[in-house]
């Protein structure tokens, strides 16, 4: 499968994404520069974490205007896969490819730690290799990961099964203290209405090898691969 990893000035998880896709999962992966206007025939676009444009003004606010984002939007518009992780999630929200916004953590502090995340649905290209209610141990590392949207939007997300991941405690319960950032409804990741664009704050690429203490995050990439294989077979 062909993955493209967008590089914005200030991206810093781009190398990690390439490593996990290319070296761990043995997929074809390449970088896509933010000034590029065409992205070629990618199967999946990855918008990586980091501090694009220093996260100045608001996270993702400046990156969304990069020339490449038009191509990313077209790619998404054609129903192809886009996944934004951490800063990537923030950028996709700013770009309007996903609803809502990410606010400063309620603690007002950056949080880097492993958290427990529950798979809320397996009905998406990003979770189809998991079982609904599976719990994965996976790291977060962000200062602004508090997901917010107005009540109607949240109701819509729920109704359409667009909430993919929620922060839970180690026993799988949605608790206030389980969330590292104070997100509405403990939301850790969502998809758009057409289910081909995903945003998540946790970092699956940091939990895809046993050497790093957890390989639970691999299920996200494995889901993407499963989905792509399925749609190619058709």
């Amino acid at each position, binding site marked *: 499968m062909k993955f493209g990893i967008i590089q914005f000035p200030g991206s810093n998880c781009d190398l990690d994404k390439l490593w996990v896709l290319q070296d761990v999962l043995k997929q074809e992966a390449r970088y896509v520069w933010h000034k590029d206007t065409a992205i070629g025939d990618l199967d999946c676009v990855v918008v990586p974490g980091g501090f694009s444009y220093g996260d100045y*003004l*608001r996270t993702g*606010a*400046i990156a969304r*205007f990069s020339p490449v984002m038009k191509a990313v939007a077209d790619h998404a518009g054609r129903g192809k896969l886009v996944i934004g992780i951490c800063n990537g999630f923030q950028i996709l*929200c*700013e770009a309007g490819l996903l609803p*809502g*916004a990410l*606010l*400063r*953590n*309620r*603690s*007002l502090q950056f949080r880097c730690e492993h958290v427990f995340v529950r798979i809320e649905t397996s009905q998406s290209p990003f979770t189809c290799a998991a079982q609904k209610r599976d719990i994965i141990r996976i790291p977060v590392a962000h200062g602004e990961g*508090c997901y*917010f*949207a*107005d009540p109607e939007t949240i109701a819509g997300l729920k109704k359409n099964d667009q909430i993919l991941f929620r922060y839970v405690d180690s026993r799988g319960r949605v608790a206030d203290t389980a969330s590292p950032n*104070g997100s509405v409804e403990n939301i850790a990741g969502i998809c758009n209405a057409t289910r081909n664009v995903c945003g998540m704050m946790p970092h699956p690429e940091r939990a895809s090898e046993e050497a790093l203490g957890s390989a639970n995050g691999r299920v996200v990439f494995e889901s993407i691969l499963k989905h792509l294989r399925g749609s190619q077979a058709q």
Partner: protein
Amino acid sequence: MKAKIYVTPKKAVLDPQGKAVANALHSLGYAAVKEVRIGKYMEVELDGADNAAVQKQLDEMCHRILSNPVIEDYRFELEG
């Protein structure tokens, strides 16, 4: 010419920073403080005169980039 832009969190949006500052003020003994809301203040120096075209451009900037309408309100003033 200078534009002064005020971006404030929408009422429905939590403002943990404002809360933290209010608490800090209370613990320092400023009992009169009831609520603090924290937003952004920007000064933009720009060429041009205070006219409808410039107003429109500023409004566009605020809407497109300087604020996020999902979570923030904005207003601006133009000055000599």
